[in-house]
């Protein structure tokens, strides 16, 4: 069902010669779910479009699907499924018409098409909405229609461009769980683009962190969080507290301890339900910025001084 995708030495230049993507080699294993993570302009969307065949790599770059060179194939011949950033649903077709479009184009007979569309509606929990106009759908429903449309022709590679970008926070979390369950069922090679680190880490088996057209780190979410390659990656995938010099730690490495060696003054605290997020001004020479940590119980008032203990095994030494 799924395939291994490989970008081999792919670069992509603008007409003026500047690089949207520096020469990059990336492998996406069959059945894996990979997040391309980075700030806007980092080259993650370009990477996705090279895989899709919506952009061509500069001379010398190759795109391989299961070892076959598909660099010259345009998107309509690559047999991929794609979910676009704002879903790009066809406004002149109803939900079923959107989902069945890929089958219609391939000349699948009507009866078979109807059955497949019904299956997709069930899979994405859109039963009963087949004849709804797409402008009458909620944001979450649109996202599911876009997904069903991409999956209906049974692609061997699924590409998603900011799949949750147009949704609000609450809905994102619900749909994230839904998509994770669906991808776990299908075991289809999936690559998605996001600028939201929580999304990348929650959904991806692999995370590729990019900046300025270059890959900075590729690895499991846990590896990227716990051993970031540099400060940028460390800050981008989570909160870093600066301990002075090249020493940093994650919020959970700090805990209040009357016998602790580190001091800080409480600036502000936010009650977040399960815990309270504390912002401190560090009282450690060389430590810059604020420290952040989460507390479970009672919270010291703003302005009060705290002493903290540090789990020394969790100190990160990060190059700039």
């Amino acid at each position, binding site marked *: 069902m799924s395939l291994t995708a490989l970008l081999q030495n792919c670069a992509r230049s603008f007409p003026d010669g500047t690089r949207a993507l520096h020469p990059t080699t990336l492998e996406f294993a069959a059945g894996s779910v990979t997040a391309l993570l980075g700030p806007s302009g980092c080259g993650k969307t370009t990477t996705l479009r090279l895989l899709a065949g919506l952009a061509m790599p500069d001379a010398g770059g190759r795109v391989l699907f299961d070892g076959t060179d598909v660099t010259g194939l345009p998107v309509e011949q690559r047999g991929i499924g*794609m979910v*676009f950033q704002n879903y790009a649903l066809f406004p002149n077709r109803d939900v079923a018409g959107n989902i069945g479009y890929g089958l219609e*184009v391939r000349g699948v007979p009507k009866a078979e098409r109807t059955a497949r569309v019904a299956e997709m509606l069930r899979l994405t929990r859109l039963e009963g909405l087949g004849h709804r106009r797409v402008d009458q759908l909620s944001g979450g429903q649109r996202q599911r229609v876009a997904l069903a449309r991409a999956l209906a022709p049974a692609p061997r590679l699924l590409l998603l461009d900011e799949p949750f970008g147009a949704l609000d926070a609450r809905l994102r979390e619900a749909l994230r769980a839904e998509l994770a369950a669906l991808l776990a069922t299908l075991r289809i090679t999936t690559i998605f683009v996001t600028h939201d680190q929580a999304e990348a880490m929650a959904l991806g088996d692999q995370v590729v962190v990019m900046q300025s057209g270059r890959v900075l780190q590729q690895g499991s979410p846990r590896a990227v969080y716990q051993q970031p390659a540099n400060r940028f990656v460390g800050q981008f995938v989570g909160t870093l507290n600066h301990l002075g010099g090249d020493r940093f730690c994650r919020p959970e490495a700090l805990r209040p301890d009357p016998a602790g060696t580190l001091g800080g003054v409480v600036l502000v605290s936010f009650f977040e339900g399960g815990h309270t997020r504390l912002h401190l001004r560090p009282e450690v020479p060389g430590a810059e910025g604020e420290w952040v940590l989460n507390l479970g119980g009672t919270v010291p008032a703003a302005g009060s001084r705290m002493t903290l203990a540090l789990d020394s095994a969790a100190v990160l030494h990060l190059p700039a």
Partner: protein
Amino acid sequence: MARRSESAGPFLLRAALLAPALVLLLAFFLLPLAKLAMLGFEGQGYWAAITAPRSLRALRDTVLLSAAVSFSAVALAAVVGHFLARRRFPGRRLLVAMLTLPMAFPGVVVGFLVILLAGRQGLVGSVTEALFGERLVFAYSFAGLFAGYLYFSLPRCIATIMAAAEALDPALEEAARSLGARRWRVVRDVILPGLAPALVASGAICFATAMGALGTAFTLATDTSVLPMLIYTEFTLATNLGVAASLSVLLGATTWVVLALARGASGSLAANA
């Protein structure tokens, strides 16, 4: 949620001030129209005026000509407008400027231009004489009117459709392609439905303009009689007011219906889009 602010006092005050102005404006618009509509009953009455052979022929010719011009202008403009909206190439801005330059010329000058193009001393004639030894002259026939109306309408259609094509979301085309659609399926399934409101709207305006155009027809002084010319002739030369009024009302009503249908169609197409 109530989005509009309200403060009943000032609103009523402003409405009271504006109401007489609106009534005056309506009177300015509607009183002459009412008188025109009543004039139609003088003489032979509407039916007779409209069914006279001269009127019928003018009506038929005008509608056919206008329909042909609208269709051609929209079809050409769709191809050119979409191409220009989507492609970036050197000289594009200049090309667009030149294609829309004719918008600056009124009907009377357009008639003039058609004579220069296809009249007795025209460019087309010179070319065909050099090639085939015979002068092709079509300025004073329906073909001349067609050329003139097309000259007038095409730049306007291109401008409208180009704007609509620029507003089309390119992601829709990419989505269709990602699902396996080749060029012509994309055109049929995505581009044409997306442009439909603009095509209908610019076609309707083109039709309405052609139905009422006098300047070009007048300048060409053709042997053909289009409706606005017939109205003019009946009104000023024959001073047959009843017939002129009947035809005016008919012309206005036809145009209004076409514009209203187009508005409805492009509204529901836009709602679909």
